[in-house]
């Protein structure tokens, strides 16, 4: 919703990504802030933001599958894993350039997801969630049995030094910039998908599958497409993760991580890719707060701290998910929109 008094003289103007001058100023400022952050010289912060950006890509993919198309996916981290193994294997074994590795990681994860979305031809909703759990459980079993020259088996794949366009990606800030550029591209894709014919078909399918099929949406095709798109995002996130951590092993892609992704999306709001951004940032901030608070509280007994902090974060995340579902089912996105409209009609109260 635009504030009153703003109008467009052409359809093209209305379809622009950033329609008003303040919006354009805001996005430029945001990009400047993102670009300037590594200059603070705080490598810890840069690292956290890099991880958060990678997670945002994966959760944005989940938003397409789960939020836009309404297909619960509990195997997102398996698809992240497929992407990570693909990218790492291509880079170390065949010397494929990093950008092509990332594209291949996305395509590979997408292709694997088709296998698990085939039951979608026959079933819907929650039952599909169970096949994605199957994907999650089968990934480690399969990777461990494949020849270790492919994906390193149980030892995993280590990447020595990542080079892109002649430069090295070993410094935190260079990896940060690569991740941010890829994240911006992927988010543009995600927002654009929501505006497209396919995105509208996804939403129609989510809201009422029978009505949408009457209106000409090919349900089986669009379910497979939704999985493909979501897993492709996961694959790209996995590729970035592989180049960031530079060590890929099967233990990094657990069902637990998939469940966390879903949790982040619920907290952020399922309705828009903005939910993926807000949810991931909120949960990352929560995690860092718990870590900081835990370190303060447990400073005297460091041997217990790691597990307890992880457990406390889980308790808070679980409680946050349930709280959001009960109190604000549309998540932080709705809060953000409320805030935005309050700003627009200020000084008048409430729209």
């Amino acid at each position, binding site marked *: 919703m635009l504030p009153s008094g703003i109008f467009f003289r052409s359809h093209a103007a209305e379809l622009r990504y950033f329609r008003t001058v303040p919006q354009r100023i805001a996005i430029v400022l945001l990009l400047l802030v993102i670009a300037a952050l590594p200059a603070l010289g705080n490598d810890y912060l840069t690292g956290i933001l890099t991880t958060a950006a990678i997670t945002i890509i994966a959760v944005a993919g989940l938003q397409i599958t789960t939020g836009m198309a309404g297909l*619960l996916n509990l195997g997102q981290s398996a698809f992240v894993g497929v992407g990570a193994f693909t990218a790492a294997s291509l880079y170390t074994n065949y010397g494929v350039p990093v950008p092509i590795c990332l594209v291949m990681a996305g395509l590979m994860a997408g292709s694997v997801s088709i296998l698990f979305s085939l039951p979608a031809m026959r*079933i*819907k909703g929650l*039952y599909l969630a169970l096949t994605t759990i199957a994907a999650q459980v089968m990934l480690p079993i399969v990777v461990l049995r494949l020849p270790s020259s492919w994906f390193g088996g149980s030892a995993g794949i280590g990447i020595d030094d990542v080079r892109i366009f002649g430069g090295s990606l070993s410094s935190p800030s260079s990896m940060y910039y690569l991740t941010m550029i890829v994240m911006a591209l992927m988010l543009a894709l995600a927002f654009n998908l929501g505006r497209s014919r396919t995105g509208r078909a996804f939403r129609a399918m989510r809201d009422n599958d029978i009505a949408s099929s009457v209106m000409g949406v090919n349900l089986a095709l669009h379910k497979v497409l939704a999985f493909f798109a979501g897993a492709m995002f996961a694959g790209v996130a996995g590729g970035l993760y592989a180049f960031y951590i530079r060590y890929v092993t099967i233990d990094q892609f657990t069902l637990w991580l998939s469940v966390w992704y879903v949790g982040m999306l619920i907290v952020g709001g399922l309705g828009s890719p903005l939910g993926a951004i807000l949810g991931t940032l909120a949960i990352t901030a929560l995690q860092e707060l718990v870590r900081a608070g835990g370190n303060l509280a447990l400073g005297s007994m460091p041997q217990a701290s790691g597990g307890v902090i992880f*457990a406390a974060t889980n*308790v808070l995340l679980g409680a946050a998910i349930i709280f959001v579902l009960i109190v604000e089912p549309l998540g932080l996105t709705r809060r953000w929109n409320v805030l935005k409209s309050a700003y627009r009609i200020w000084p008048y109260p409430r729209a």
Partner: protein
Amino acid sequence: MNFIQVLIDGLLTGLVYGLVALAFVVIFRASRIVNLAQGQLVLVGAFIVMSLLQWLPALAAVAIGLPLAVLAGLAVEKAVFRPLIGQPVFSVVMASIGLLILLQGLVQMVWGAQTRPFPELFPEGAFRIDELLINKKLLFGGVITLTLVEVLQWLFMRTRVGLRLAAVAEDHMIALSLGVSVRRATQVAWALGVLLSTIAALVLMSGNVLSLQASEIGLRALPVALLGGLESLRGAALAGVIVGVGEAIASRYLDPYSAGAASQLFPYLVMILVLLIRPQGLFGWKTIERL
């Protein structure tokens, strides 16, 4: 002889899977809640009873632990699922994911992540018939499973309470408009569900090592519940046996050639096949919406 031994082992293990699946089915059957936190319920039940066992004799610990489990179930219902009555199924499943994360974290915070031995509640060892060995603990577990299946079958099919639950499982809105209390049904569902999960925990854990990984049994039970049909109590037990026997055969005859992968993959391959061929499972209601 060897083959029959494999069958017996598979059958008895399968009945334990069936017991966990039964808890899942009861919650679904009574309230239409797909409870993805099933494994965590087993975990909570196991830890409650284990804490009691530290100061009480076995029988007393179980006698106090089971009512406590019922209370825990009612608390979960009140805090999480009652406010969501009338919300889309999707939100309820999401809430069960929240519950999953919450309970796993809570157990780790309260009891810690270390592994510990769980006392023997059932006799260890095995009965011997000729060359065949029948594991005593699993045999007791199997008998418990079958008894519970029949008791619950009677409850759901022959009593007024059970039929009300079935109405709620069909459709919340219609049940409400006919004067059936959805709130009461979800209460019964969670009381029974956590109770059954705790019993399953006793059978599973007796004489074993208890750790946070025990919750993974929930993931094994999902394919079982799906194979049997999400509404079918007897189906859960039968599907447990099918998965158990299939797993045992795969593990005996295929694992040597696949480095142990066959038996782990088996339940999930069965699940995907079932979903493709017969989405409602063997004995589920045919109301599953399909394309």
